[in-house]
């Protein structure tokens, strides 16, 4: 079975069809996906900015990051769940969209960046926790994260257009 036919099958399932054809469910899921940007990427912004040495410099990096983390993860969980349902009901359209494909690749790269940060320079955070401006490797991770998330948002929004 090709990926395209799998996408076709998925959106033709009872759930896919129900969401797509409903008057309220699709807008509600989509709006939740958009507004949850504030608790996912919005909170990520705060910890990334600390990592880049721009805000709350007098507080330890680990404090800024760890305290916001559970809320941020809640935001990303909402994003993931609503995102799955949005894909579910329009899988073929997504499959045919270059913006969606780019988005998926960027999501994977962003996840790799986050894991590399946690397993890399963040393991030694004790050594630079109070640094006003964290070491280069941490700053790069922060910049990379923000640039990728901006691109992910752009891809997600632009998916709705056909040029």
């Amino acid at each position: 079975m090709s990926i395209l036919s799998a996408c076709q099958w998925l959106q033709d399932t009872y759930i896919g069809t129900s969401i797509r054809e409903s008057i309220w469910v699709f807008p509600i899921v989509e709006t939740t996906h958009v507004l949850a940007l504030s608790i996912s990427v919005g909170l990520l912004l705060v910890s990334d900015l600390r990592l880049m040495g721009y805000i709350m410099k007098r507080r330890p990096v680990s404090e800024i990051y760890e305290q916001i983390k559970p809320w941020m993860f809640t935001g990303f969980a909402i994003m993931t769940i609503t995102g799955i349902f949005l894909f579910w009901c329009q899988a073929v359209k997504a499959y045919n969209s270059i913006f969606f494909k780019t988005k998926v690749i960027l999501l994977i790269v962003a996840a790799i960046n986050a894991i590399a940060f946690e397993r890399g320079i963040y393991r030694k955070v004790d050594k630079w926790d109070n640094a006003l401006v964290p070491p280069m490797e941490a700053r790069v991770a922060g910049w990379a994260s923000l640039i990728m998330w901006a691109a992910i948002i752009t891809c997600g929004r632009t998916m709705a257009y056909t040029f």
Partner: protein
Amino acid sequence: MPSIVPFFQWCDDTMVSQAIRNSRVAFPIIENFHLFALTVLLGSLVVLTLRQFGLVYKTQAISEVANALRPWNRWSLVVMLVSGILLFLSEAMKCYGNTSFRVKMVFLFPALLFQFTIYNRIVAAEDKIAPTGGKVAAAVALCLWFGVGLAGRGIGFLG
């Protein structure tokens, strides 16, 4: 009472409106900036609300957290308003007949007013623990701004 339709018609006819309508990419590009700014604006508000409820950054005073976030909150609001006005100009007549747009305005003006006359002053004066009034103000600001976002998304969906 004079009708406001001519005003919307004028907005719809400006050179900027026509330029945006005549471009295939202008609207999506402006919309993307609107969405970035939404993320930053609502994000900074969520962090400050979490702080007021004592759920994050308790070692910092509320006013301190508000100070750290202020430029991000301010500048994202500027981007939000500029991009929002451009989007509006390009489809002013559509917005006139759009219930969601009207609801959005009913949330937007109180949100701006509440933030600049009450909320900002409250958080600027708060130390480590927010009194009940401060928490209520945070909840009101959050509801008003999320209301703006909710109705804004509705413009495209519901009419």
